[in-house]
């Protein structure tokens, strides 16, 4: 019997296992008999049909509703995944993106038939420029990593225009993994610098690393330890003096809105994650959106097409000879642009500042409340996230991964773990402004309980979780015996 008394822990069928010949959940719109047949040579015809499931609509719905209950999600409970900004996703935003006037637009519509869509993108651009203090922007990148990459291509084009593309980009050792990967893809080598004892960029090390081969610096601010880079002005001056450009990874922009602006700090480019800071849903891993804001000196290199506005109308400008090209087939993830603008309109300028203030207060509150049991990696006021080390628990024989898995039993999603790499047994906690004081208090209680369990019954933690739809999974087995589709053969 497949069913279990705890229904949530029953093994689920796959949709293919529910398939029965002749069932269907779809009826095609009619085709008039007047129409000719679709004629195609025999050798180009499909003989063996693809083995898609044959199920009715209600079977499909029940299967995927049941599967859905096996997910943790932000509408269900706390989700303090550091660097990911798991904030509440307002419902009105989704409805707005589904309006026929937005959802029903073909991207090749221009001119008179799509003025509203272009106006929306223009308004969003303006708001994002105000938040970042930059001069110009592209909404094209479909994710933060793509924003990084697009900006690095602009850096490359800028240096090329000045005669030499240069060779290296500097990052701190606390950087997100996408940074070095994007650098390599943009044709540069990576120079990684160790952070100083306060977890900040080491300006002396930076000085030594800078030369005429350095195309630029990528840095996250506040950094991945949740700390504001206090020397940022000096850092940026140093890179500029060496002829390099400076990029801000905007993953942590939720700490800065109305509080401090990358453009004012001197950054030449930064990306924003609309799916983090501006509340668009994470969708189980996408779609995201990673607009890149830049200083005027990079404008000529922006990806095409560039949205322009004259008195009469909005238009797409393709005639940009110095452009890096395009990083998306069209204009980026427009559906996310709609949601982000709805969010900004709902919050307003004062509300955006309130978001960052509350995010910072929530993180510091957790820092203070958790510090009796957990080691705070840098025990100073943090910005929107706090980074702990599970070192004290490790001494009791419990690893950070065990703490994370135990949290699942309490219905709480664990923080980001083992990142940044420079923190041993790392727990990176980002509560966001969405959470109430009561939720934070509950989380603290659970974390304290887990710390007690680490002392009293460490083995309990090592086997956790117990209450989830599946228990700990054999990831090594999955990689060794690769099974990535249901059917063994190809038809």
């Amino acid at each position: 019997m497949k069913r279990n008394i705890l229904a949530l822990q029953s093994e689920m069928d796959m949709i293919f296992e529910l398939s029965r010949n002749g069932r269907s959940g779809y009826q095609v719109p009619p085709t008039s008999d007047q129409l000719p047949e679709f004629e195609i040579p025999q050798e180009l015809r499909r003989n063996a049909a693809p083995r898609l499931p044959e199920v009715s609509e209600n079977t499909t719905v029940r299967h995927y509703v049941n599967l859905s209950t096996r997910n943790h999600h932000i509408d269900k409970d706390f989700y303090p995944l550091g660097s990911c900004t798991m904030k509440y996703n307002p419902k009105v935003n989704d409805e707005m993106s589904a309006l026929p006037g937005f959802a029903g637009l073909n991207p090749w519509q221009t001119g008179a038939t799509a003025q509203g869509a272009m106006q929306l993108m223009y308004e969003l651009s303006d708001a994002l420029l105000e938040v970042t203090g930059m001069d110009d922007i592209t909404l094209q990148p479909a994710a933060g990593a793509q924003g990084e990459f697009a900006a690095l291509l602009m850096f490359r084009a800028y240096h090329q225009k000045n005669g030499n593309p240069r060779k290296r980009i500097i990052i701190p050792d606390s950087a997100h993994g996408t940074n070095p990967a994007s650098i390599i893809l943009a044709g540069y080598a990576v120079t990684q610098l160790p952070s100083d004892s306060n977890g900040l960029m080491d300006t002396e090390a930076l000085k030594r690393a800078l030369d005429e081969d350095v195309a630029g610096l990528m840095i996250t601010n506040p950094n991945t330890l949740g700390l504001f880079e206090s020397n940022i002005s000096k850092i940026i001056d140093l890179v500029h003096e060496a002829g390099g450009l400076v990029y801000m990874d905007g993953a942590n922009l939720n700490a800065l809105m109305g509080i401090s602006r990358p453009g004012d700090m001197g950054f030449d480019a930064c990306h924003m994650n609309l799916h983090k800071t501006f509340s668009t849903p994470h969708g189980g891993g996408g779609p995201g959106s990673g607009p890149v804001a830049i200083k005027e000196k990079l404008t000529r290199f922006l990806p095409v097409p560039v949205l322009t506005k004259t008195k009469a109308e909005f238009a797409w400008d393709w005639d940009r000879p110095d452009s890096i090209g395009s990083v998306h087939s069209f204009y980026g993830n427009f559906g996310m642009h709609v949601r982000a603008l709805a969010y900004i309109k709902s919050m307003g300028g004062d509300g955006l500042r309130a978001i960052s203030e509350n995010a910072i207060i929530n993180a510091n509150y957790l820092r203070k409340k958790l510090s009796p049991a957990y080691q705070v990696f840098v025990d100073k006021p943090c910005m929107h996230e706090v980074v702990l080390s599970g070192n004290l628990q490790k001494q009791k024989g419990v690893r950070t991964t065990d703490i994370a898995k135990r949290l699942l039993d309490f219905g709480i999603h664990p923080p980001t773990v083992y990142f940044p790499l420079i923190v041993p047994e790392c727990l990176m906690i980002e509560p966001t402004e969405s959470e109430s004081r009561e939720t934070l208090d509950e989380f603290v209680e659970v974390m304290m309980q887990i710390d007690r369990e680490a002392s009293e019954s460490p083995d309990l933690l090592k086997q956790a979780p117990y209450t989830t739809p599946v228990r700990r999974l054999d990831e090594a087995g999955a990689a060794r015996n690769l099974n990535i589709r249901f059917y063994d053969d190809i038809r």
Partner: protein
Amino acid sequence: MNIPANCLYTKEHEWVRLADGAAVIGVTDFAQGELGDVVFVQLPPLGSTVKQGDSFGTIEAVKAVADLYAPISGEILEVNSVLDGSPEVINREPYTDGWIVKIKPTSIETEKSNLMTPEQYKDFTSA
């Protein structure tokens, strides 16, 4: 931790053992412990040549990947085909069944001095 006396070692945690004019190469007990469950080993083609210190393949765990560096220069004589289906043998028997490649050394005498003795490697890993 197991550090056999009949091997020489690199700072990147490979071991090499000389036998009948061939050199057998693998990763150390320390390395497999740090990596965790090994899930895949990318092996070099037979007959290719490697230089001391060059990467000749990669070893992958679930959430880590490491380059394999040649402890000495030479020509690849044999690769351990068992690793294709059962890479976990490296976790179980890093110095015996879990060997990775056999090479025909070309300049072993001059290169030996760049390697660590078992005692040196022991100090190196406990430092």
